[in-house]
Each structure stands twice: as structure tokens, then as C-alpha cells.
């Protein structure tokens, strides 16, 4: 499948069958999903499943077309292969045009949840909303058109703690009118020539080294690299669930919109803390970035050099003041690309993930002292907040509002 990944080097984006794809770890995936499925007063599960169906339909329909796949067997086999390639686990389709049953093993979400929370709390409801949407999308793209099928997870490993999940798929009584992906979204025309920060980190060299790694699902359909459990997710899945969720909050209870925004920012914080914390303790980091690290501020630059290798767009630290503050530009952020293709210009900055991610990078280096290789567990994360002095961030320039690029500033509270 690697031959179908296209790296847009100037914009630092990665496309897979015309969909932007980005790396994120299970900490982020779980926290974001939990935020959306939590409220009992909106249908968060439907947002998650429907968005997955829409975005993966676009990806799979493009894949089937480009690969010239004609038969249902070829298409379903490819859908299962892509699912594993992206790191979501393994799907085994036992279906006809009328629907059927799909077995899911090594689910990223279910196994990730058990690994992260399973010893602490029980789960009573299925967790594989992405896989449910994916299965419906696979049948839509194989047999019919977007919105033809509906799926439901009837048995989930996160609940049963058995070895596989079951997803049932049938034709919807009435086909649903769903919205396909905006694909690459509103791209930047020309990369902005940002000044190179005061650092010995060579962003482009890090990009090339990481882009050259063939990161794909293993025989279990899981991507284990940089000490974390990764997925190569269509960026528009994150974008769609995030913005649709906030739209729904705005509609039902605008007073809780800020709470939703704060939790999405926190998902960005969780992501950077765990993903980058683990990356910075990994052998890959030591090998690729380690030789470029001379000062503490280089760790921040190194983090953004890696971030800009993950398909997130052109992330660049413009200025890092040791232990005090940082200013980070993102030119062609994946959130803004989607937002501008889907909404009118924003009234307020809307790159919520990045708003949480930028202060998190300072927190992991200056409060977490990642260079000492701490154990990155929940207790460590909680202590970090309890001690105070955490970095907070603000989006000071927003492309989604009309600025030429997005810019973030983080400093201690």
C-alpha cells in the first residue's frame, strides 16, 4: 500500500487515495472519542459512526477506482487490507450484498482502551465506532453508494474482554443522505518562508528520515513504533467528528460549548504528552533527532520537526524561550484545511487540537523533564497538573479566520 501514499513535501501533508492521512496514538484517539460519546443529551455515537462512514467511503471508493477493482471479493479484501495497513486491527468480512457479519480482531480502540483504562474501570458499551462506520462504508463502496448500509457492534472486546468483536451490517430501511469527505480541503498555495529558529535541529532532515520509515500495520493490523500504538488516520475523520460535535453542542446547549472546546484542547494535550513523550524516549528519536539536540530548546524544535513529519502540516517553532514560552507557526494545518473547505471563515480561532498540543510540548520538556526518561503513566501526568505552573496556549493568528497562517503562543499560567 505504500505506493499509494503521496507525500506533499512543500506542505508536509500525506495523502492516501486522495484523503489526507496523519499519525496519532491511541491516547488521543480514545480521549477525543470519549469526549464525543460522553454527553447523554446528544447522539455522539452517531456522530462518530456516521463520520467514519462518510470519510472512509471517500477513501475506499477512490481506492477501488484507482486500483480497478471490480468484484466484491477483491473490494472487501482490499477494504480489510487498508483497515490493517492504517493500524486499526483486522477485519474479516462474512457478507453478501444483503449484509452480514464482520469479525474484528486486535481492534486499536478496544485493545488501546483495555491497555489504558482496563485495569481501572469497566466498560459497558461497545467502543468500535470507527470500525462500525468503516464496515458500513466498505459495503457502501463495494455494492452501492454512500449511506446505503448501517452497521452495529454487537459484541466488543472492551466490554467482554474476549478475543474478538462482532459487527453486524445490513441495508438501511431508507438510504441516508450523507456528506462525503472534502478530501485535501483548502490547501495553502505557497508555503510561507518562515525564519529558521535558533536551533541545530534540521526539520527537513528529520522529515525525510521519518517519511522514509514504512510504518504500517503488522500481522495484527497494529502499528507499534516510537514506543506507542499508532494509527494512520484520515485527518478528516478527526476534523469531522470534532467540528460536528461542537456544532451539535452549539445547537443544543451553547453554554456547554466551551466545555467541549476545552476537552478537545485537552485531547491535543494528552496526545502530545503521551505520543511525543514516548517518541522522545524511543530509540527512533535518539537515532534520528538525538544527534541534533544541543540545548533544551532543541527538544522543542525536535518535537515540531517530528510533528511536521506526521502529516499534520508545516509545524515550525518560531521562537523558544527556555522554560518560559514558545511561539509556533502552522502553515496549512490539517484542522484549518478542513475547516476552510467546510465552513465560512471562523469568528474565533478553531484549531482546537493545536491549541492543546503547543503548550503540551512545553509541558513535556520543561515540566515533565522528558530528557530524564520518566515513566509516562497516568500518575505522572496527574502530578504534572497538580504541581501547577503548567503551560497554557492561545491561537494568536488563525488561518481559519483569515490570517495567512496559524500561530500559537504558549507560556506558564
Amino acid at each position, binding site marked *: 500500500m505504500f505506493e499509494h501514499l503521496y507525500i506533499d513535501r512543500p506542505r508536509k501533508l500525506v495523502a492516501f487515495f486522495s484523503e489526507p492521512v496523519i499519525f496519532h496514538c491511541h491516547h488521543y484517539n480514545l*480521549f477525543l472519542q*470519549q*469526549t464525543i460519546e*460522553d*454527553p*447523554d*443529551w446528544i447522539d455522539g455515537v452517531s456522530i462518530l459512526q456516521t463520520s467514519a462512514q462518510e470519510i472512509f467511503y471517500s477513501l475506499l471508493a477512490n481506492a477501488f477506482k484507482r486500483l480497478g477493482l471490480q468484484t466484491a471479493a477483491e473490494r472487501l479484501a482490499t477494504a480489510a487490507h487498508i483497515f490493517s495497513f492504517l493500524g486499526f486491527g483486522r477485519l474479516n468480512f462474512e457478507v453478501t450484498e444483503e449484509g452480514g457479519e464482520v469479525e474484528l480482531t486486535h481492534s486499536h480502540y478496544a485493545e488501546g482502551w483495555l491497555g*489504558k*483504562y482496563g485495569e*481501572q*474501570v*469497566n*466498560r*459497558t458499551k461497545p467502543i468500535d465506532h470507527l470500525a462500525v462506520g468503516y464496515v458500513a462504508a466498505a459495503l457502501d463502496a463495494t455494492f452501492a453508494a454512500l449511506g446505503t448500509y448501517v452497521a452495529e457492534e454487537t459484541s466488543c472486546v472492551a466490554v467482554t474482554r474476549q478475543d474478538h468483536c462482532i459487527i453486524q451490517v445490513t441495508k438501511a430501511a431508507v438510504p441516508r443522505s450523507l456528506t462525503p469527505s472534502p478530501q485535501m480541503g483548502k490547501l495553502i498555495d505557497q508555503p510561507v518562508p518562515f525564519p529558521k529558529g535558533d536551533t541545530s535541529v534540521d526539520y527537513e532532515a528529520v522529515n525525510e528520515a521519518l517519511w522514509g520509515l514504512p510504518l504500517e500495520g503488522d500481522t495484527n493490523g497494529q502499528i507499534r513504533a516510537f514506543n506507542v500504538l499508532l494509527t494512520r488516520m484520515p485527518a478528516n475523520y478527526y476534523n469531522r467528528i470534532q467540528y460536528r460535535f461542537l456544532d451539535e453542542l452549539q445547537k443544543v*446547549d451553547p*453554554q*456547554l460549548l466551551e*466545555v*467541549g472546546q*476545552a*476537552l478537545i484542547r*485537552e485531547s491535543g494535550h*494528552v496526545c502530545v504528552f503521551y505520543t511525543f513523550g514516548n517518541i522522545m524516549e524511543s530509540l527512533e528519536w535518539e537515532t534520528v533527532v538525538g544527534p541534533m539536540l544541543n540545548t533544551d530548546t532543541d527538544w522543542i524544535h525536535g518535537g515540531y520537526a517530528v510533528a511536521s513529519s506526521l502529516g499534520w502540516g508545516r509545524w515550525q517553532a518560531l521562537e523558544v524561550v527556555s522554560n518560559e514560552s514558545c511561539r509556533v507557526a502552522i502553515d496549512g494545518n490539517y484542522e484549518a484545511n478542513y475547516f476552510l473547505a467546510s465552513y465560512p471563515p471562523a469568528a474565533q480561532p478553531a484549531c482546537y487540537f493545536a491549541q492543546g498540543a503547543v503548550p503540551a510540548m512545553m509541558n513535556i520538556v520543561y515540566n515533565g523533564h522528558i530528557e530524564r526518561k520518566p515513566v509516562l503513566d*497516568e500518575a505522572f*501526568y*496527574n502530578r504534572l*497538573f*497538580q504541581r501547577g505552573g503548567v503551560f497554557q496556549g492561545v491561537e494568536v493568528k488563525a488561518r481559519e479566520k483569515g490570517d495567512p497562517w496559524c500561530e500559537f503562543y504558549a507560556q506558564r499560567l
Partner: protein
Amino acid sequence: MVVRTLKSVLEQHIAGLPGVLAVLIGRMTDGATIAEINYSGTHLEKDSLGSLAAYASDLLRANNRLCQVVDAASEADYLLAGSAEVRLVIKAFSKTPYFVLFLTKGSTNLKLVFERIKAILADGKPLLPPVQDNTTSVAQLLLSYARRYAPDPNFVALRLSLKTGLHRERLEKGQLDEREVRILYKGVADILGVERLPIPLP
């Protein structure tokens, strides 16, 4: 004349006992710390000591229920917990919601600890504050319980606000009516994946 306080009682009765890390008097109903002495230096931060009383309260409540399952007429006596390195001894002031907690090194002589506890129970009981109803609202107890047992405790209030539709400020202040407390109860139980919580609804 020297005024005796719970803290001075604790100081008097732990003097000379080797391996003591912390001693406190707590209240089971809300997990509050009434008096404390921390000898652990940097070992236990202020927040950790506070959470010690809260977790001890949970243990005592569980122990009370456990003892009542075995013998409905029995009164829970003491609790021993800990690890190879540290030992926790908890004993309730009889017929009150208050308890005394000793955190010691694993090597500390347990017999000596019980002797000191006995003295603290005797001298401390007249000094315990009167028990007031509704010191802490059920809503605050639920929130505090969620902070102790739910994942991501720093964000659990936000999460509960979003989950229940109850606004954060009212949630944190515990100013909820009975219907809202029931919603919060269900929210906490859902997050933990359990049907019942060890906190009675009003």
C-alpha cells in the same frame, strides 16, 4: 495553661516512634483531614496527604460494609494496608465518623503503632469537632469520588459537566437539586462502569 488540640495529641503520642511517615485524623463522611503531621519530608506532597484521608475513608466504608456482611451486629475495628515499603494502619473513633491513620515504614513495629493509636483514640475523642449534617453536599462527594477513581482526574469535572449537561460552576460548588444529583450519580457511575457507588443518594 496549654490548650490541647488534636494536633498536639498526635505530636505527643507519636514522639519517639521510629519509621513514622505521617499521622492524621480524618473524617469518613467526606474524606476530610482534621489534623495531620507529615514526617516524610518530600516523600509525601501536601496533595498526596490530602488524598490519603480520602482513600482511607473509602477503605473504611468498604470495611464497614464487609464486616456487616459477615455479621450485621459487628462494628468495623481496624484496617491494615500498604506495600512492602510502607504500612497503613487505620482505626475509627468508636461511634463517630472520625478515624486515625498511621503511615509508617514497613519495618515499624506494629505493636507499638497500636499502642500509640489506642492513646490517641482516648485523648483525642473529647477534642473531635461536632458532627454537622451536610458538611459536604452529596454532589461534592460524588465529584470528589470521581476525582479519586475515574481516569484523567484533572479533567473529570469538565467531563462530568459535558456528560450530564450540568454547568461546571454549579457542579463544582455542589449546588444541585435532587434530580440533578441523581443525574450526576449516574454520570459518575457510567464513567466508572459500575451500577452502584458507595455514596448514598439523598
